[in-house]
């Protein structure tokens, strides 16, 4: 039987520890994900409020494959609409970000104009000229708004959903995730800029990466080399949301940590005597409660809220076809940062993003998987570490199993 012809319902994944590779390589599954996940009953990150400081400022991005624009109106309400003119379908907003001086957004093709909320407010030559041409008499611009998404915010982060009858944002996130997001989003934040990466792998491989505490000290040798993170630290892996699709990995230093597994010498590059000249990037200045060295919170499908040492960021995952995704770090601080804390955050930016000492390998790891699985979609990976519901260990794949269980439900996989 040709492997490629299997539908998502025909995949062999009754064993929750085995994930068929076809879910990362199949174009038809990718298209189903766009419909069931990104345009389904989920909430996607679109912007930080502080990216849109002024009335009528805007930012263009994507929800899944669909181009969208987020705007702030003159009453400080946020709107998200599909970046597609309601006349003939042209892209309206062509800049990544900016500000509309008069509060309107005009399609260049036939100059239809829309307000910040996406209402159609202007149609040139609507009545034609000298009694000839124009739209029918009963045509009303107000009948042709842009396609709007639902919008909600949490702690200065703006989310959008295509689902008109889906859960509220808080229902979708679940109380545990809301509580822990507020650990980081505890006071007004200030946007400090963006980094963008293109990675040649399926987007879900990156989602997995952010739910996988096992790799952190093993792939990211910087951690072990400079003694800043070990899987023997305090920490945990927590699942959240009604479908178990969200998660939080946290790590903190503990007294009397048992490092013997590292000291045996089986793990590459542990304590090799290599030293940094400037150790300020390794420091964690306590500022959040509780004090974590790492807070990696994966909010399905498109967002990761992170605190690594004193760096703060919202990562956004944008699928760009079955084997490519864009990874965007929106880096922020707090409005009330002291000059010293702000300087510390800027120095520690060396830890994260595409050139980050402890994040640069993640994209490459997903490519290693994609490269090796593409030829064999009927093989599978193994996610068997730890017990389901594990909370207090970093040596578990329980969060990944919960994720894939939720994925099957959300994708409407009919077999059990």
């Amino acid at each position: 039987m040709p492997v490629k012809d299997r539908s998502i319902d025909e995949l062999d994944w009754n064993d929750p520890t085995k994930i068929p590779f076809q879910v990362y390589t199949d174009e038809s599954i990718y298209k189903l994900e766009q419909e069931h996940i990104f345009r389904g009953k989920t909430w996607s990150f679109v912007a930080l409020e502080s990216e849109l400081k002024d009335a009528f400022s805007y930012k263009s991005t994507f929800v899944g494959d669909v181009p969208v624009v987020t705007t702030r109106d003159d009453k400080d309400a946020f709107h998200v609409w599909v970046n597609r003119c309601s006349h003939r379908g042209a892209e309206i907003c062509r800049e990544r970000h900016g500000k509309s001086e008069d509060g309107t957004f005009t399609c260049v093709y036939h100059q239809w104009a829309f307000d910040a909320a996406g209402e159609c407010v202007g149609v040139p030559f609507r009545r034609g000229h000298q009694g000839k041409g124009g739209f029918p008499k009963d045509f009303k611009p107000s009948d042709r708004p842009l396609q709007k998404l639902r919008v909600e915010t949490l702690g200065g982060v703006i989310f959008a959903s295509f689902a008109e009858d889906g859960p509220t944002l808080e229902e979708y996130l679940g109380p545990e995730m809301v509580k822990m997001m507020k650990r980081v989003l505890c006071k007004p934040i200030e946007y400090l800029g963006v980094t963008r990466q293109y990675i040649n792998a399926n987007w879900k491989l990156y989602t997995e990466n952010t739910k996988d505490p096992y790799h952190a000290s093993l792939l990211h040798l910087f951690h072990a080399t400079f003694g800043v993170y070990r899987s023997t630290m305090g920490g945990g892996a927590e699942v959240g949301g009604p479908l178990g699709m969200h998660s939080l990995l946290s790590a903190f230093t503990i007294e009397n940590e048992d490092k013997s597994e590292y000291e045996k010498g089986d793990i590459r590059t542990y304590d090799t005597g290599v030293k940094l000249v400037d150790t300020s990037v390794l420091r964690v200045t306590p500022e959040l409660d509780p004090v974590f060295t790492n807070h990696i919170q994966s909010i399905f499908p498109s967002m990761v809220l992170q605190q690594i040492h004193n760096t703060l960021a919202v990562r956004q995952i944008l699928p760009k076809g079955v084997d490519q995704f864009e990874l965007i770090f929106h880096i922020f601080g707090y409005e009330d940062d002291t000059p010293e804390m702000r300087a510390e955050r800027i120095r520690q930016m060396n830890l994260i993003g595409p050139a980050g000492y402890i994040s640069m390998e993640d994209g490459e790891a997903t490519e290693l998987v994609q490269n090796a699985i593409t030829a064999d979609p009927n093989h599978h990976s193994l996610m068997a570490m730890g017990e389901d519901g594990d909370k207090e260990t970093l040596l578990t794949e329980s969060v990944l199993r919960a994720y894939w269980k939720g994925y099957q439900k959300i994708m409407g996989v009919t077999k059990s």
Partner: protein
Amino acid sequence: MPNISVTLELKSEVENLLNAYAQCIDDDNLEQWPGFFTDDCLYQVIPRENHEMGLPTAVMWCDSRGMLEDRITALRHANVYQVQWYRHLISNPVISTDDGDTFNVQSNYAVFKTCNDGESTVYNVGRYVDVIVRDKGVLKFKERTAIYDTHRITTLMVIPI
């Protein structure tokens, strides 16, 4: 502000610095790379988008020669990445100076990257904005900002630009 004219001799000295810097990286002599900077320095690789909006986020940010050395220590001993080579092309340097001691230089760059599969790609394109000073008789970078247009970095950046 007086703008002292730039002599051909100075122009050639600055160009030598720009070229030697590029060659050092392309030849994988990365241990020598911090030596192109003064002890107290600023090196950053920043997306054009952030630079134009006055936002500080850079992908590499080092404000001392020690931090530059750390970049190389991490690259050699800690970070994990596939074998890769850079090839820098530098062009159009424009030099100005107000006092004859500090030189403001802007030049264009293109970095091609080749990995083990043998394909060379245009990896990172942008401009260098430099502040160059004389340190014990030798021209060095007091500030070097690589402002890149290629805002979608392919996979990762480990070698400095």
